[in-house]
């Protein structure tokens, strides 16, 4: 029974409309059963679970050496930060030491992944709002063009474009080939220049601001109460970023500032993410300048299943992914397979805020709000 708030229009009967699961702006597989009064939404029931593969049961049957490349399939748009969460949880239980170079590489890859993920967010959001045959598609193609450059970097480093298996317990599996750093510097310089173009096209563009200012406002209390995190939390005025508040993998060696907007509406989230673009570029430059030499893993490469054994214990490792706090709560029983793994997906909680803020907005706003929440359904359904 959707939580329907009684808005009494005189006699106009209600229209129940299905948005999804294969709706063009559904960002993957999500179905919202909207009850409409004319154009405004009066009731929302979200149906998820279409992409459910039970990662948590899989984690109980796959060893510590196998699961990182499967962990990247939870949030397939930000694979690096998903793997990092799992690997850090195991390292925290077993007190495995990670060499300095591996920590720097992890930071570098997470920030590159943030840029690529934010590119996809901006592109699909504008495509939702602007129409596939209109201005939205233009910005979508610009963003995809930039994202391809970052994916090429990942491809020359790891060999794959989206799902890497880059991390392993105790460090990373690949080192940077020569000539990669120069290519990386060239790419982020180009992206920085292209960012100014996106902002010129969108920032004070009346069509864009009309669609986003004051739409889908999330209050500070509601944000914390539902567990919304990342750009949504910082868009609602909360200065909370795991990279700075609870630094992991030597994030405290780098200077970067955390954007916070007070309004909490779609435009605030847009501003937060655009500033995050630039901060990630700033971090990448600092990492590339200070990359130490040395080994990339404190344990030998994967040779057999029983190679990594994590002693008995529990740990909750939190990573600041592009969509928010990606956490992996790991219970280890000393064997080479975890006893229980809970995956805290950022998009799951970010999506849980939708039924609270969609009541009362128009159908077109539902699309704009969905885009600004930027859910990825591999992470929602796990």
């Amino acid at each position, binding site marked *: *029974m959707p*939580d329907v708030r009684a808005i009494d229009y005189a006699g106009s009967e209600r229209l129940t409309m299905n948005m999804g699961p294969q709706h063009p702006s559904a960002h993957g597989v999500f179905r919202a059963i909207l009850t409409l009064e004319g154009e405004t939404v009066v009731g929302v029931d979200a149906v*998820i*679970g279409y992409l*459910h593969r*039970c990662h*948590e*049961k*899989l984690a109980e*049957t796959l060893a510590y050496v196998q699961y990182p490349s499967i962990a990247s399939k939870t949030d397939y748009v930000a694979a690096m930060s998903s793997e990092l969460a799992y690997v850090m949880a195991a390292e925290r239980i077993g007190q495995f030491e990670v060499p300095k170079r591996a920590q720097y590489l992890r930071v570098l890859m997470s920030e590159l992944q943030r840029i690529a993920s934010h590119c996809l967010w901006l592109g699909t959001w504008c495509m939702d709002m602007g129409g596939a045959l209109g201005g939205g598609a233009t910005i979508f193609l610009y963003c995809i063009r930039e994202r391809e450059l970052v994916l090429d970097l990942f491809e020359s480093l790891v060999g794959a474009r989206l799902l890497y298996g880059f991390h392993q317990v105790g460090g990373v599996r690949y080192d940077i080939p020569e000539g990669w750093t120069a290519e990386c510097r060239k790419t982020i310089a180009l992206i920085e220049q292209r960012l100014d173009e996106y902002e010129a096209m969108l920032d004070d563009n009346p069509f864009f601001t009309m669609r986003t200012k004051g739409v889908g406002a999330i209050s500070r*209390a*509601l944000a*914390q*109460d*539902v*567990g919304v995190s990342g750009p949504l939390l910082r868009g609602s005025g*909360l200065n*909370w970023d795991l990279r700075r*508040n*609870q630094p992991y993998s030597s994030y405290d060696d780098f200077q970067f500032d955390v954007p916070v907007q007070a309004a909490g509406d779609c435009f605030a989230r847009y501003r937060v993410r655009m500033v995050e673009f630039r901060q990630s570029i700033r971090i990448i430059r600092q990492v590339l300048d200070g990359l130490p030499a040395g080994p990339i893993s404190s344990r030998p490469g994967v040779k057999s299943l029983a190679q990594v054994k994590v002693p008995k214990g529990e740990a*909750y490792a*939190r990573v600041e992914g592009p969509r928010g*706090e990606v*956490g992996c*709560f790991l*219970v280890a029983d000393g064997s080479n397979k975890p*006893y*229980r793994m*809970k995956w*805290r997906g950022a998009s*799951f*909680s970010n999506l*849980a805020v939708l039924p*609270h803020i969609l009541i009362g907005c128009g159908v077109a706003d539902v699309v704009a709000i969905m885009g600004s929440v930027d859910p990825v359904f591999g992470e929602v*359904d*796990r």
Partner: protein
Amino acid sequence: MTAGHDRLTDVRAREMLATVAGVTVSGTGATIVAEVASDHWREAAQFAKDALGCAFFSFLTAIDWKDQGIEVVAWVDNLDAPFAVELRTKLGPGVTACASIAAVYRGANWMERECFDMFGVRFDGHPDLRRILLADDWAGHPLLKSYAVDTPHPPYR
């Protein structure tokens, strides 16, 4: 913020939490692990939110300890004086009912539905307890250790 009190640090929070009935505190540094008796579950959550100011709800899940029964874990954060409270309650062998904290934290609504979906834990007081990820007519609760033990080594192709 909640009831005006001085700069709440994790040390003070630990003492305040210890005074609550049915709660034994452990854990080091900024993470306070609170073992809660299952009948004090909702009061402990309410206390954490109001007195300790843990407004940020991170997640709620369960662990199936086979014969010792199911243990429900909730992780809440105080973002200003950064410390985290890990509320844990053992439901006892064979018990699958637990108090719902969806009234305290709205984020727990979906998390508890997922816990019911995966573990079969019935949260009484939950406004709309039904399966969230699996189909409504799905038989069994996958994350229980007793589930699908007989199926051969994956893949299930």
